[in-house]
């Protein structure tokens, strides 16, 4: 991560605090241009609060830090993977307010006030979510790099489509890539999980 431009400002802002941008210094012009009430943060690190797997988490990040980087590098939740980092592969998928999103294309600061659900909040080896269980039983992974993104995307999809056809599954999981080509297993797993999740007990 480059910080060519940001260093001197960051130093200033750390001293000044979040609200300090409206004082003097390098950001004076922004402050003057800002109508009353327009909150400005950064470019230096600012404290933010994210709601991750139901718990509030405080961290201090620059506005340019993406949600995937915040999860992996600041909160130590490494289940979501950074692979393409350009909103194309799906390995970084998390649920935001119940909807699947690419966490590489969301700024962490932007995710405040939203409910963020990661693979860690869904499933564990001790207590497998029906989707994880179905992935395991249907051989729906090979190298495993895409798996956590696929499982999260699948849960988001099944929450919204409890009775999918195979065609629905194909389109509904169309935002995730598997380089090993485990799609047949993934689709079978999604259909099996849909049957097991009926009644919403594990949703």
């Amino acid at each position, binding site marked *: *991560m*480059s*910080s*060519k*431009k*940001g260093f001197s*400002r*960051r130093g200033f802002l750390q001293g000044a605090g979040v609200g300090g*941008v409206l004082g003097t210094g390098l*950001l004076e012009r*922004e402050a003057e*241009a*800002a*109508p009353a*009430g*327009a*909150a*400005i*943060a*950064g*470019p*230096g690190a600012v404290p933010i609060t994210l709601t991750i797997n139901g718990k509030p988490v405080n961290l201090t990040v*620059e*506005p*340019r830090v*993406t949600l995937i980087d915040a999860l992996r590098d600041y909160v130590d939740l490494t289940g979501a993977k950074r692979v393409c*980092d*350009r*909103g*194309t*592969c*799906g390995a970084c*998928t998390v649920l*935001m307010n119940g*909807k*699947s*999103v*690419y966490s*590489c*294309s*969301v*700024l962490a*600061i*932007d995710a405040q006030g939203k409910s963020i659900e990661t693979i860690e909040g869904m499933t564990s080896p001790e207590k497998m979510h029906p989707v994880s269980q179905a992935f395991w039983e249907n051989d729906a992974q090979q190298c495993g790099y895409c798996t956590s993104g696929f499982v999260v*995307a699948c849960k*988001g*999809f099944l929450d919204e489509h409890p009775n999918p056809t195979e065609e629905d599954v*194909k*389109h*509904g*999981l*169309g*935002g995730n*890539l598997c380089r090993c080509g485990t799609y047949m297993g993934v689709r079978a797993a999604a259909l099996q999980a849909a049957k097991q999740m009926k009644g919403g007990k594990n949703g």
Partner: protein
Amino acid sequence: MESFAYANPATVEEAVGQLAAQWGEADVLAGGTDLISLMKENLHAPRRVVNIKNIKALEGIRKTAAGLRIGALVTMDELAKSALVLAGYRALAEAAAGIPSPQIRHMGTVGGDLCQRPRCWYYRGGFGLLAMKDGKSLVPEGENKYHAIFGGGPAYFVSASSLGPALVALGAKVKLVSAKGAREVPVAQFFVTPKDGDTREIALRPDEILTEVVVPGAAVKSATYEVRQKTALDWPLATASVALEMNGTTVKSAKIVLGHVAPAPWDSPAAAHSLAGKQVTEATAEAAGKAAVADARPLSQNAYKVTLAKVAVKRALLNAVKG
């Protein structure tokens, strides 16, 4: 990604106060599906990012006297599922549903779809919008299989907007707001083909925000058909959006707009004219497709797109009258 200050306005007035008279100073952030990647590639390196997602006035779809008013923050997912859109604006719902990933549909917004930058790999690779090297475009003799077959030179990229062709076919307008006031621009004039490297591919000015789209309420039969190499995680190769005003079973007037074949949505009056006063049948739809591509000027690797565009027109027309 370069560092930036992050503004989080709650109103359009506050938001436009954060914009600047020149590009490069500030960028508007909505769904982020394009901007965040552009910033990672340093193609955009704004000093200030203006998040507009907390501006309530930019949300929602509703009927007004002028037609359907669609807020800039409406997501592709909301648009594709909206009962109001499905009822009278099928071409638009189909264009939104065609965007091939649930994650992108959950995040991507109407305003963002219209304002996203082209996917041309020369542009994305840092060669600029016109892909110029030594005063000459690299595209005509380069890797041009996904480039324009219409309107090329000096710009050969294709407009990346999925909604653009449908909105042009339906005669929609966009509302652009700056600190100085608001203006309405027909979507057909919102997309522009740049003649030099400093012009953007849209009419939005750096100090403006696209706040809403208004689609007139005329009763038309419409459809969008996309031709793709892959059904997932890819852009279409050619699309057609059609809107037909019917007189019984015959076409009174038609609007036929191609997508992903030119630097802007490509309106084909010749194709539309070929249908006037006729029923839409296999034969007339095929003739309209032929008329739509009669003036195509393919590059060294993309003649295949001429056939795809022709087929897209035919199938969109047949779908429009089917249901």
